[in-house]
């Protein structure tokens, strides 16, 4: 084998190894997620089908044409209860508005909100309640708490086993 061929083969081998190493380096590139410089306030819960049922006796017209043994004693309608979510951070409003329902009008309400917040001490106030006063028995949740958020922390606001809003902090 001539010296030129040996040199060419050596270069070819070195280049092949360099190529594979370059590929491997690109497959393990370090990246600093800028989101981790801040903290995140996260709200997550789901309440099943909050609705208001109103019933009345059926009218004559409604009973007409229905077989006697199939006539209902009352006719009921379910009305979705509109909900409002309010989130305050140190007294400033992060969000205040109605909560959209998932799918149909009497489907469950799912709350999933994320807010980027600056690291440090904060006071967090969350209110989740029906918008109509008539729905007094419907689920309502509220929370008012102080929190110390470090960079990269997730402050999770979610109901506990008793249905009261509580906070979990990542550390």
């Amino acid at each position: 084998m001539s010296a030129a061929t040996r040199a060419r083969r050596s270069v070819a081998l070195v280049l092949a190894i360099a190529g594979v190493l370059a590929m491997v380096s690109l497959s393990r590139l370090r990246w600093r997620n800028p989101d981790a410089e801040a903290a995140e306030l996260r709200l997550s819960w789901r309440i099943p089908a909050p609705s208001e049922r109103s019933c009345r006796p059926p009218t004559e017209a409604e009973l007409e044409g229905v077989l006697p043994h199939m006539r209902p004693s009352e006719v009921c309608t379910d009305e979705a209860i509109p909900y409002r979510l309010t989130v305050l951070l140190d007294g400033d409003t992060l969000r205040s508005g109605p909560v959209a329902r998932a799918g149909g009008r009497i489907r469950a309400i799912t709350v999933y909100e994320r807010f980027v917040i600056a690291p440090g001490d904060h006071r967090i106030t969350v209110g989740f309640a029906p918008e109509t006063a008539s729905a007094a028995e419907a689920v309502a949740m509220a929370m008012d708490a102080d929190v110390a958020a470090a960079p990269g922390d997730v402050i999770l606001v979610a109901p506990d086993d008793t249905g009261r809003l509580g906070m979990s902090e990542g550390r």
Partner: protein
Amino acid sequence: MLKRLLGRVLQRTDGWVDRLYGSKWNPLYQSGALVVLCLAVMLVTGLYLIFFYRIGAPYESIVRIDGQPWGGRWIRALHRYAADGAIVAAVVHALRMFCQGRSWGPRALAWISGVFLVFLLYVCGLTGYVMVWDTHGQLLAAEGARLLDALPLFSEPISRTFAGADPIPSAFFFMNLFLHIAVPVGIVIFLWLHVSRVARPVLLPPRPLLWTTVGLLTGVALVVPAALGPGADLLRLPGDVTLDVFYTFWLPWTRSAAPGVAWLAAGVASAVVVAVPLLTRPRADRRPAPSFASTRLCTGCEQCYTDCPYDAIRMVDREDGREGKVALVNPAACVSCGICAGSCAPMGVGPPGRTGRDQLSRVKEFVQRHPGAGGDMVLVGCGRSAAGAWAGDHTRRFLVSCAGNLHTSVVEYLVRSGARGVLIVACPSRDCWGREGPKWLVERLFHEREAELKARVDRRRVRVAHASAFDQWSLEGVMDKFATELARLDAPVGDDSIEVETECDLAESSTPQDSPLPRPGHTSGP
């Protein structure tokens, strides 16, 4: 413009890589086969890893796998690097096809199925990263859920799964595992579709390249273990993350973009890639016409049917009262490579203007026009090879559209007309735009494959070289060596009355009009 620029870069790179590795082992020519090789490596290593993966404790099981220094750790690294290799090779392969204009017409199916193959490869890779469930997997899952929530697919936001209020259900990891295993089945189906229009598909690279690739990937897997970040913690925002540029290059950008913008960008990019067959299709008047078969000249020998690299020729019953079969070209499958022209002894098949008869007429003119070329070496070659880019004496150069298109009667004519030697320059065998041109050329010249070079032609005066357009270095080397060998031979004696056998009348017209349409819907001419 972009195509031409990229093509130029690609040709130059090919030339340099040819110089280093030789055209036979140039990995750029084997990019498609390297994808399949990487898939095979992923399959074998994946089978091992699946025994140790636990959907109930995904991260812990990966840590355990990485704790096996002689088994799991390097096998997982090999699995991952092969996945990266597959993407790199697929992109190179697609770029080559794009630059070479091999993405439209009958090749559109291969292009589209190739795009789907890459998409499935991506899905497979992304599910694999989520399966690890480290901070990278967490970021991917959360970002994927955020993007999916922007689409009207789910009644409730699936991002809540990663809110951290509840543990991740094992059904999520089962779904990932299922997709990671099921998607490769789709890959196999699309791979079959990808090669369904070609005859004798070559799925693996030559053994030396195959084992070198596996060896290099294994070596690097032994030395550099696959990255594994800290375990996912849904109540912490992942900070330092190890990204895989080949699979998750988009992550830093989409994190700061609105989901709608991200989907729009992905949609536009996908649409452009899928539309390449339409965008790269030449104007109707510039498209090369498909081959046609002359039913009168066809003897039914089946050689063109055997040689066609695209299965575009069928043998059908004759309808002209003669016995036997006749070749019938399917224009929808024909890419006009012209390889059939080189396979036909009576020169009755080929694209218009490029049949054996057309070549014979051209070479006669060439010899008459350049009488000085007799007694010297004549360069015959594919226009895309080094012969096409040759800067030497053009009076000694005779070009054809593909080395496989070259009819051996041309070589015979040149030798018998007094050329000292005929050097035929073909593209590197794995980079032939007609797939099998160089292979059939050598068979026809030296191994008596139809239409073979006649025994009366002195083989010492005929040589084949494989050199890509920018590999003039190889070509010059072969030319010098061949010239030295020719100098040792007696001076050539020109034949004044050359008769080349064509079995049929030479005056036979080779226009498409003499090819009737035996079956409705299948024309043998344009």
